[in-house]
């Protein structure tokens, strides 16, 4: 066995160029797949993290009432009851945001833009200050001006407003009445790329006034936990506590297999009637159910790439090993004559293939690490259109060890398979025929 392995290893160095080409092809395959895996590994995490910042929460609680006309009114009146739940469920809470919002039309000198406006309590929204990058103006000026607003630079440009300009806003109150107000532009945020027009930020006090709800009321509670990994167990505990204390919608989960769980819950509230406030709990994972699907698709794609790439490489390996067998036919005959058994001849080729695969795979992993390391050093910045995929402006990669091992195993197996037929042919040659072949 040791002899066979020694010869196999040395045989690899006989035709260095050929070994490098084949090993290089294997390395390339492993490299591509590893990079894709690494990317998709951190994809969910980064997207979730970024969304949790944009949406200001890992777990959300909405309150819904039925208006006299049977319409849904979004409101949480009894903050004490909801806040008590957080303590009850012993949640690992980092921040809690209490927000109100509306979708209204901003009007300035004849220009109109439809815009989500979120009412925030900036004193408690440290989180938002970390996330939102201002291009001009400052966060301090917003609480000072009750009617102040922060718009994204893009929206400001569309409306052609400057800092200090006053604009009109048209909206519907919580109960669906038409209402009008006035905003002053206090700051402009850097365009957050893909979700550029997502939100404008204003003082919750004033937004509540526009919505015609009391100052201590709000529409949505966003809970940010210590870690994104705690979402599911924390949400389960909170929901359990909620069900016992409050009138609560049945929770739909992302893994229940009914498409978008959030949409399902919205639809449910439309068809039901009730008295008072009914509460709804959902999580970032529910909202991002589709992201996991994207990741699954990425992983399947990488597997397909691996297999296709390797079917191509396999053809090369099979042909090369056929050639090798022919080149060394006299050697094979000699070894057989001297007393080497058939299966040892076969193993000789298989070991050579295995060493090639492992060498190539290791080189591929090293190359992938270098490339991933280099890519993650680049500061793309959080104002790039792909910011949602980034972590603090950098691409990140996360590999799961068993996945890397599985890739290497698949490659080793396919390489062995590719070499098996030529190896078996070599082993089955009659020694006389092998020795007698003139080449």
């Amino acid at each position: 066995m040791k002899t066979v392995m020694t010869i196999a290893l040395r045989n690899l160095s006989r035709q260095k160029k050929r070994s490098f080409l084949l090993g290089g092809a294997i390395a390339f395959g492993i490299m591509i797949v590893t990079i894709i895996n690494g990317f998709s590994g951190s994809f969910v995490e980064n997207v979730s993290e970024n969304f949790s910042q944009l949406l200001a929460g890992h777990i959300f609680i909405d309150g819904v009432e039925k208006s006299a006309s049977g319409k849904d009114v979004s409101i949480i009146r009894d903050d004490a009851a909801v806040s008590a739940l957080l303590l009850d469920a012993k949640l690992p809470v980092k921040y809690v945001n209490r927000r109100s919002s509306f979708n209204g039309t901003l009007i300035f000198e004849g220009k109109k833009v439809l815009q989500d406006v979120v009412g925030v309590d900036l004193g408690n929204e440290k989180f938002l200050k970390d996330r939102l990058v201002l291009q001009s103006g400052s966060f301090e000026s917003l609480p000072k001006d009750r009617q102040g607003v922060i718009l994204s630079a893009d929206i400001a440009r569309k409306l052609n407003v400057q800092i200090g300009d006053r604009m009109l806003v048209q909206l519907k109150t919580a109960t669906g009445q038409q209402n009008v107000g006035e905003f002053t532009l206090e700051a402009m945020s850097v365009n957050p790329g893909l979700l550029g027009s997502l939100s404008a930020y204003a003082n919750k006090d004033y937004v509540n006034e526009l919505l015609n709800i009391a100052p201590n009321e709000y529409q949505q509670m966003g809970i940010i936990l210590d870690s994104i990994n705690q979402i599911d167990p924390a949400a389960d505990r909170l929901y359990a506590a909620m069900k016992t204390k409050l009138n609560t919608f049945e929770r739909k989960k992302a893994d229940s297999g009914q498409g978008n769980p959030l949409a399902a819950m919205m639809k449910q509230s439309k068809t039901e009637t009730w008295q008072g406030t009914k509460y709804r709990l959902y999580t970032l994972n529910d909202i991002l159910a589709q992201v996991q699907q994207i990741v699954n698709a990425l992983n399947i794609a990488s597997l397909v790439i691996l297999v296709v790439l390797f079917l191509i490489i396999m053809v090369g390996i099979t042909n090369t090993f056929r050639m090798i067998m022919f080149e060394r036919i006299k050697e094979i005959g000699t070894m057989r004559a001297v007393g080497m058994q058939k299966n040892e001849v076969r193993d000789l080729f298989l070991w050579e293939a295995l060493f090639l695969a492992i060498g190539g795979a290791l080189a591929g992993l090293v190359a992938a690490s270098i490339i991933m390391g280099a890519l993650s050093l680049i500061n793309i910045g959080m104002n790039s259109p792909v910011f949602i995929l980034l972590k603090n402006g950098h691409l990140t990669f996360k590999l799961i060890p068993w996945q890397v091992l599985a890739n290497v195993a698949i490659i080793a197996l396919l390489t062995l398979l590719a070499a098996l037929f030529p190896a078996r042919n070599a082993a089955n040659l009659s020694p006389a025929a092998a020795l007698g072949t003139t080449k």
Partner: protein
Amino acid sequence: MTIVKLENVRKIYPLGKTEVEALKGVGFEIEKGDFISIAGPSGSGKSTILNMIGCIDTPTSGAVEIDGRATGGLSDKEITKLRHDVIGFIFQSFNLIPVLDIYENIEFPLLLGKQTQNKKEKQEWIDYLIAEVGLTQWKNHRPNELSGGQRQRVAIARALVTKPRIVLADEPTANLDSKTGEAIIELMKKINREMETTFIFSTHDFKIVGIADHVIQLKDGEVIENRRTENARSDGGKNA
């Protein structure tokens, strides 16, 4: 004592749509310890006969008996083991393994079977063989650094390393100049006498035929002469 026995051996090779009858019913016996020359013109069947004796090919019909064992009906595994234990090979074009150095080439057959010697014994034995063929300084060189004559000496040492009863050599001097060829034959003869190994070699060089104990002359796949020579008789006690 008879160590090789061929009985009515025929070998037919397919050749395109026709056939070639390379051996047309050959039979002879070989005595243990003899130095045997298989002679004949090109195409007469020398290599084919050596392949049969060396068990690297099987006859179309007839029987081959090696060291008292009938080889017909043995499995490939058994035949391979028989080759390993009983037969050593020397080839016309040396056939050393290029990735192994001289010592490793000679050691190679020992690593294939069950290993009976201890490490030190084995090392001493290989070193002895290397000295015997005069290549001690070349021990750690690769074959491509050696001349043809030197390579054939390595091949001789490799053929002897398993202490086989029979060594087969198919035109061992054909790729060497005549002086080197003679030296190789001398060496084989010396070992044949010292170790009492049976040597069977093919050649069409009649000078070489002269030093054989037993000459088997072939023509067109048939034995036309089969005689033990003066050498055998004068060499004391090995007569039939």
